[in-house]
């Protein structure tokens, strides 16, 4: 495990830390971005997470521990950022949806060419209608491939609550998919 050196030469430690950042940056950024839907804010949160990791590294004993720590802290920090943003009066919701729609529409056009039933971009767009906690649970389940028990531990909530969030989220996505299918069928 990465250990902060006692000597004054910090370079090897920083190189190892850089490797750690490069290994986990996609995961951390994706969780933050998919909860927040804003690349700038997601990067800010992801940077904060890695800075906190740098400070806490001495307490983390294994790579598994680091991974669990990153998932937990990223979700919590992204949810905090989401709450802070939602509470700001000056926050323009339209701007957020507009940016997200542009990003997702671009992806949707690319995915449509591949002829998939539920395109990635569509799924991501439908996900924006979910609550932040539902998105978090869904991300940990499908992006991070975690089991409901692991998600419950990471988010400090009962497993039944995790399952309930998952079921509601999937139900919402399914209803969106069905609506879309009907629209396509009706022309």
């Amino acid at each position, binding site marked *: 495990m990465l250990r902060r050196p006692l000597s004054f030469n910090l370079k090897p430690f920083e190189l190892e830390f850089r490797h750690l950042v490069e290994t986990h940056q996609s995961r951390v950024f994706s969780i933050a971005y*998919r909860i927040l839907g804003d690349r700038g804010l997601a990067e800010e949160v*992801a940077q904060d997470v890695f800075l906190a990791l740098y400070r806490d590294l001495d307490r983390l004993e294994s790579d598994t521990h680091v991974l669990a720590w990153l998932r937990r802290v990223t979700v919590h920090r992204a949810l905090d950022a989401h709450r802070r943003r939602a509470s700001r009066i000056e926050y323009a919701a339209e701007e957020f949806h507009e940016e997200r729609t542009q990003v997702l529409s671009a992806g949707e056009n690319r995915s449509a060419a591949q002829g998939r*039933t539920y*395109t*990635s971009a569509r799924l991501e767009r439908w996900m924006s209608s979910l609550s932040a906690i539902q998105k978090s649970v869904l991300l940990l*389940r*499908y992006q991070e491939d975690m089991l409901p028990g692991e998600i419950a531990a990471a988010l400090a909530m009962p497993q039944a609550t995790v399952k309930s969030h998952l079921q509601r989220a999937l139900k919402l*996505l399914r209803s969106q998919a069905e609506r879309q299918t009907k629209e396509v069928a009706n022309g």
Partner: protein
Amino acid sequence: MVEFEDRPERDDELDRELDQELQAALRPLQPPSGFADRVLARVQEAQVPRSPAFRERGGFAGRMRWAAAAVLLLAIGLGAVWALQRQRRIAGERMRDQVLLALRITGATIHAMQNQVAQNSQRSEQRETP
């Protein structure tokens, strides 16, 4: 797949499909380029006040400041002691001079009184001698 109870078979099939689609769709995204560099830069920034080189420089300057303050305090202390001793020496010399003057005056007075007594004795003896 997430378990759903009492659901029609078609729903389960849709869920399985949705499960697969979600797993495929939610692949990790690449962060903006240069992300790791920016994180490392922030780490360096946060570390600057704690870096050993900086600490050493700060420590040396700090020690120099303390040494200068100690020298200044010592100089002030020695100056004060010297001034006090000088003041005491002057006061002592003045007192000694006063005592010597007083002794000289006393000596002269005693001498004058002795002469007076001696003269008086001689006069008495002359009167008594027929």
